[in-house]
């Protein structure tokens, strides 16, 4: 499903990733653990095809980074959900609009949008807050909105870049539970974190990354 083979990535003169080999299977929950600056986010950006490897191959479903055209990128992104530590939500819109935005942007019809938004909001447990503005939500709730938005287009994999990095212990637990539930219904999740103890609570395969290399 996701295959990174002998991937190297340089940003100018700095080597960010070296000789990365990762295979993510369908339905798998894979956690990449490492300190800040180890290259975790770069790895996810490669899979999301925001950046491309200097060397090596990145294959996500049917999309090969080496043969990717600019026009194909949006289609890949509709199939790869992504959430971030800083949520990246539109703060001047409410919960419903934030989730619907992902569907509007990909040309989904109005009737289907409403139905789908209600479905994903129910899945993350935020149906009752659908008309609440983003700044009025707690950090945990904002991350749930981000997850709902990532799920809206029914991706086959969810990339979660330090999804609990900005959250307190209680919200962290809620988000991890939600991710477990989503993975439990068959969706692959690739999560990065710098907190190793978090991963131990998850039924996940773990990879350690240090200075751009997979070390265990």
């Amino acid at each position, binding site marked *: 499903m996701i295959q990174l083979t002998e991937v190297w990535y340089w940003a100018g003169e700095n080597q960010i990733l070296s000789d990365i080999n990762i295979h993510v299977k369908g339905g798998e929950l894979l956690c990449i653990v490492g300190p800040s600056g180890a290259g975790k986010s770069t790895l996810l950006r490669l899979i999301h095809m925001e950046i491309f490897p200097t060397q090596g191959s990145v294959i996500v479903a049917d999309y090969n980074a080496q043969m990717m055209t600019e*026009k194909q990128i949006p289609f*890949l*992104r509709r199939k790869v959900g992504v959430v971030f530590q800083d949520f*990246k939500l*539109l703060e001047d819109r409410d919960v419903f609009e934030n989730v619907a935005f992902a569907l509007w*942007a990909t040309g989904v019809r109005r009737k289907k949008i409403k139905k789908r938004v209600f479905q994903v909001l129910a899945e993350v447990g935020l149906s009752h807050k659908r008309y609440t503005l983003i700044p009025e939500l707690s950090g945990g709730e904002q991350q749930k909105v981000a997850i709902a938005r990532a799920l809206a287009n029914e991706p086959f994999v969810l990339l979660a870049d330090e999804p609990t990095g900005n959250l307190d212990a209680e919200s962290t637990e809620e988000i991890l539970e939600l991710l477990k539930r989503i993975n439990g219904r068959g969706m692959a999740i690739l999560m990065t974190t710098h907190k190793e103890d978090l991963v131990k609570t998850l039924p996940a395969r773990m990879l350690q990354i240090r200075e751009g290399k997979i070390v265990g």
Partner: protein
Amino acid sequence: MSLNLLYSAREGIIGLKRARMATAITISTVTISLILLGIFMVLTLNVHRIVSNFRDQMALEVFIDNSLSSEEIRLLEDQITQEEGVAEVLFISKEEALERFREEFGDDPLELLGENPLPPSFQIKIQQAWQTPEGIEDVAKNIERIRGIDEVVYHQNLFRMLDRYSRIIIIVDIVLFSIVLLSAILLVSNTLRLTIYSQRKTIQIMELVGANQSFIRRPYLIQGILQAGVGGCIASLVVWGIWRGIEFRFPHLIEISPLLLLASVFLSLLLGFWGSLLGLKRFLNTT
């Protein structure tokens, strides 16, 4: 209209409301740029109109033999009319010439000399294409060769001076117009960038969720066109208002064509489109 286009239009309008300050700055910038451009164009066109009128009014004075009969004068008139470069021929009889002299100088040659010494003449207007020092000289020489013509008089030096100054005015005009237009384009595109910059997070999220480039661009292009269009309309109204003010104080001094005002609005729409397109190039593919 497709749903996506409706959505883009709605997003574009909502975006303007969200970025009120940037919108106000953009509309003001477009308005000021186009007012300057409009005033410049009105002045330029009027300078050209005045120069052109002046050229049109310049005529050759063709004095004819005093002894010609009216039939011969009529034949002469036909002959001159057929000459290349001649636009209009006006016959001035001895009596009319005397009347003009009286009006112009206040004296009556008839009283002083006992007879009318003024010869009959033709006043000849020149076709626009021949209104150059060389062209007029050619026309004058050709007419001078015709039998029955005594003398052709025209202000050769004045024509040469007018021609020289017209050329200078055209060059200065082209240079100034290019500078003003270029400044307007740069100013408007940079200000539109400001509106787009204020909404860069939205663009980033659109890219994240898989919106294609045309979907991302559309609301901002609509925003750019709307902002510039509003600015263009205000600018046209202001230029029209200034013209009405001048017209009230000094009637017929300056003419203004409604086409110029429409062109200004059309130019503003183009500026909005280009400006947004340029602004977007910078913010796309930034995720």
